[in-house]
Structures are given as C-alpha cells and as structure tokens.
C-alpha cells in the first residue's frame, strides 16, 4: 500500500504566474505522406504565430522565445533520434535550448508542464510547448505492437500486443464493480465522433448512433473499434509566457496551472490505498466503495495518477469543486472506458457514479461541464506527443471565445481539402471562464491535469 506523507502531498506552486496566449494545430490524419514531421510542425507553428491575434509580428514573437519543450512519444515510429533538434532548427529557433519530453500518452501534458515550469521559475519569459507524432511510418498492426511495448515487456506485452487489451479488462471490471452498460460507453463514442464532425482538424468525424458503435467490429472485447482512438500523424504548438509578456502579446491571455501524477505501469500492481481526496470530497463518501469481494482502489477501476494530478492541479488553481467551477473539460478519451473511469478521478462524479456524468447530460454541449468539444481522441486525434497540447489549445480557444474562428472558417476547412459541413454548428461555450484538460499515458502510468483560467 502506498502511504503518502507530508512532503509527497506538498502542493506545487509557481514562483510567478504563467499564461497561455496562442496555439496552433495541424490537420490530423492517419497517413500524411505529403509532409515530413518537421514540415507538419511548421503548419502548427505558423497557425500559432499568425492566426492568434498576437500584437507582435511572427518574427518579433519568435524573438521572444528562449526555451522549447518538445514532446514526442515514440522514437521507434519515426526511427529518428533527436527529432527535437530537427524541429527546433526547422522552426528557426536555434540555438534556443529544447528539452525532449516523453511520458507516453501524457507526453503533450508533460510538455506543457515542462514549458510552464520554465516560465514559472524565471528560466524563460516565453516558452514554446511543441509536440508531434508520426505513427504512419509503420503499418497499423506494427504500430499496435509498438504501443503495446508501453505495457510491461516481461509480464504483459506478449499477452496482447495491442493496447485495447489492457483497457478491456478495466471495462469488464468497472462494469462489474460499479455498473456500466455498453450503451453508456457507446454514448461517449457517439458524442465525441459527433463533436469531431464540427472540427476541420478531425480524423474520425461521424454522426453515429449507439447501435452503430455497438455493431462496429470488436477490437478486444468489450471494446469496439468506434470506441477507440486511431493512429494519427500531426503536431501542435502552444505559447506560454509570464504576465508582462502575456499582455504585451495578447488581449486575451489565460492563466495556466498544471500538475502530474504517476502510477505503476502494470495495473495489476495497483494495491489498495487510501484515496487522496479532492477539496470538495469527504472521507465518508467512500466508506462503502469497496463493498464487493476483491475490490481495491484504484485497482482496475480508477487511475491514482489522474487523481493525484487533480489533487495537485485543483489546489494550485484554487478550484474547490471541478463540476461547479469548470465550464468545460477535455478528457483523454483514448478509449470510452478510460474516459468514464477518469470522471471519478477528476471529481466530476464521486467514485462509483462515473457513468452518471454522461447519462445526466452534464458532459454534453449545453450541459454543466461539456467534455471533449474538440472531438477528443476518439473523434479528432491522438498524435500522441501532440495530444495533450492540442487539448490545452482547444480549451484556450474556448476561453478566448475563438471556437468559431478556429473551427468555423471555411478557409481552414479548404486548406485541408475539406468542405465545411452545411449543417456545421458552433460548439462555443458561452462566457467560458475556466477549463481543464487531462493528458494520460499507459493504463494510467502518467497523467497531467491542466487548468486554464480567463485572465482578461
């Protein structure tokens, strides 16, 4: 049993405030032979510099950057070590120092955390968080195998060689422990594919029904293909800065808080432990949680890394109750089940009641805390190193009131060879003030929770 002591629970704090001012994305697709990775990163970098209403020219903004955090999950896809050096050179940022960041699926979140720490500490006034992944360098089944090496090589990888097989046992167990229907899981997929339909960046948009999801081919029972994210090529860039520079660059900066947690690579080794409580929770809430035989927390049902990241991030940001105080959230819906599991970890529902976040309507556009209006991983992308940056950018644009600008402009659709749907609708959350995003690795081995707050 893991016992957390005083020092372990010290809440991180910035030495000075950190702001996000601009973001840039690429089109996300399974196979992007028309561009090399650094060329694709340039697309995101240009959008960040040119399309975010910054008050200085792109060259002037570049002239302010003096630190780069560069996220890239898997060297074996690209088969190019030190990609960071190619990217920094290609963006014209040499000889600024770049640190490569790698924490699996949470690489994007960890990259933002690294850039934020640079600003908060005073190392940099302006830091770039850039991430990418080029998964099309191998065929899908080889990619499945590569990703499964993010399970324990000795005791797990040979038992599946596909990542859905490490989440599927969680889906079975969660349903047994807390009650979860396949229909509720499918609703997450329906929602996120639909929201992706309104995004020009999206890889897997679609208007599906619950039946379509449940009738789609099985990956690993009980998870169907429409419940899983896909392999993606793509990149994302987010610009962070200190307070003075933030207002010099933008009329719409947002404050940033972000923290992380880690837990064993093997779910099976997650022994029962006391639940670190979020500010709005009380110990009596969970007295009856382990009522069935063999139940443990976090076990196969929850993610201690996500809970620990939320424990820190909400306290850093002064959030007392996430459901009441967040206007939207971007969760790491690599699989429908992991999305639902996380609702408990980040306090959108008490543990054991996670499915209600979907069933109540809270998770939908117009609901209490709409989730994954970007289309999420299932609908829009999981270019792994870019994902946690993409999610932060989508939150930033919502708080800046720029959803329509970045999703509804027919020119953006046309630049990707797509046509904006005639029935396109805006998913701009009115008066959004505060947002959170979750970046998640492995079967919950690393998780960051980031918070963005409107500062204008």
């Amino acid at each position, binding site marked *: 049993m893991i016992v957390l002591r005083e020092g372990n629970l010290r809440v991180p704090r910035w030495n000075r405030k950190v702001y996000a001012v601009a973001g840039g994305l690429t089109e996300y697709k399974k196979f992007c032979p*028309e561009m090399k990775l650094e060329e694709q990163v340039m697309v995101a970098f240009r959008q960040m510099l040119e399309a975010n209403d910054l008050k200085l020219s792109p060259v002037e903004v570049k002239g302010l950057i003096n630190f780069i955090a560069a996220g890239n999950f898997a060297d074996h896809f690209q088969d190019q070590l030190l990609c960071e050096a190619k990217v920094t050179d290609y963006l014209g940022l040499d000889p600024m120092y770049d640190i490569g960041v790698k924490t699996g699926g949470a690489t994007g979140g960890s990259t933002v955390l690294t850039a934020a720490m640079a600003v908060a500490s005073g190392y940099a006034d302006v830091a770039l968080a850039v991430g990418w992944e080029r998964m099309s360098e191998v065929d899908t089944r080889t990619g499945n195998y590569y990703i499964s090496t993010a399970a324990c090589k000795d005791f797990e990888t*040979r*038992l*599946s*060689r*596909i990542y859905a097989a490490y989440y599927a*046992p969680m889906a079975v*167990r969660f349903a047994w422990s807390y009650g979860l229907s396949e229909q509720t899981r499918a609703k997450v997929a329906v929602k996120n594919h639909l929201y992706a339909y309104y995004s020009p960046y999206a890889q897997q948009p679609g208007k599906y029904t619950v039946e379509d999801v449940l009738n789609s081919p099985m990956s*690993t*029972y009980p998870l169907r293909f429409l419940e899983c994210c896909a392999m993606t090529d793509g990149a994302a860039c987010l610009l962070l800065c200190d307070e003075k520079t933030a207002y010099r660059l933008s009329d719409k900066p947002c404050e940033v808080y972000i923290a992380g947690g880690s837990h064993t690579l093997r779910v099976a080794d997650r022994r029962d432990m006391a639940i670190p409580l979020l500010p709005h929770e009380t110990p009596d809430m969970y007295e009856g949680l382990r009522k069935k035989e063999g139940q443990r927390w976090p076990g196969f049902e929850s993610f201690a890394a996500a809970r620990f990241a939320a424990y820190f991030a909400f306290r850093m940001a002064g959030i007392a109750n996430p459901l009441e105080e967040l206007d939207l959230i971007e969760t790491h819906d690599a699989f429908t089940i992991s999305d639902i599991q996380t609702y408990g970890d980040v306090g959108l529902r008490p543990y054991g009641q996670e499915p209600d976040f979907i069933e109540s309507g809270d998770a939908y556009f117009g609901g209490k805390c709409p989730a994954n209006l970007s289309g999420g991983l299932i609908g829009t992308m999981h270019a792994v190193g870019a994902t946690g940056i993409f999610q932060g950018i989508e939150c930033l644009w919502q708080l800046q009131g720029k959803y329509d600008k970045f999703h509804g402009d027919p020119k953006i659709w046309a630049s990707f060879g797509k046509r904006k749907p005639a029935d396109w609708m805006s998913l701009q959350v009115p008066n959004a003030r505060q947002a959170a995003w979750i970046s998640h690795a492995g079967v919950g081995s690393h998780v960051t929770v980031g918070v963005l707050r409107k500062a204008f």
Partner: protein
Amino acid sequence: MASKKEATRYIGQPAKVLQAEPALVIEWPRSLAHRHTYGKLSPFFKGLGQGKLLATRCSNSSCAEKGLWLPPRADCPDCNQPMEWVEMPQPVIGTVHTYARVEYAGAGVELTTPYYQVDVELPGVCTIFKGYLAYGEPTIGMKVKACFRTEDPTNTILDMCWIPEG
C-alpha cells in the same frame, strides 16, 4: 594509410518505392534482434519451464507491508530492501479478477485469436497476475488453475497459462 585505388561502390539494396506521387514514399526496412535480460527475475522465468510459479516476499522485519509479489520483484518498493523467492504451492488455484477477449492483435502475436486474457487473484499475493486462459469462458470470481509449458518452453511469460478449475 594506403591510398584507396578503387572507387567506392554502392552495395546496399535500393529502397522500394511505395508511393511516387504526390510525395515519394519509400520502404525503410528495420529488422534486428535485441538482447534482453530477465536480470534478478531469471529464477521466475526458469521456474515456469520447470512447472514452478515463483513469487517474491519481503522478509525485512521492519517493512510495513511485507508483501508477496507476483509478478515478482527483486526489491521491495515499500522498504527498498531485497526480497526472497517463495514457490507457490501446487496446484496454484486463483480467482479471475477480470478478463478480456483479444480478437484483433498487433504484429507478432504468439497466440491464436480470439483468446481470453485473465487477471488472476492469488491467495496472499498483494498484486493481480495477468495471463491467458487456455480454454473455456471466464467470469469474474471463477476459479482457475495454473498450467505450465514444461516441454519446448518459450522462455517467456507465455510458458504459463490458466485453465478452468472444477
């Protein structure tokens, strides 16, 4: 150094063109074998081929947990002291904690699909042990018995599996 008289020649294999338009996409062969050690867990993997299931226990009297671990670990994460090997008594009977049916597997899969992966609780073990069910349909709470591939072992975790018990 002697002067080089002959011109340098190309002795590689030309890259196969996978796509010529609009961008040139070539095949990039990658085939190599790594060397992997089981390190201090070697007794566990040798044990499977001998029909034994070895766990580790922390015997440090000042450790707060003194856990029994399977998968084993050479060192205890609670007190950071070396652990000791313990052979699980035969027959090894466990309880299915959860399961999944693998239908689509990644490159190099070594089991015929579909198959059931099972996560098994074992008496006294603080962890849950992942394996596969050789036949039958799992349910949560079902009893299963460990079987070992003692002939022609694979020298991997696939040298053990579970079968329904009773």
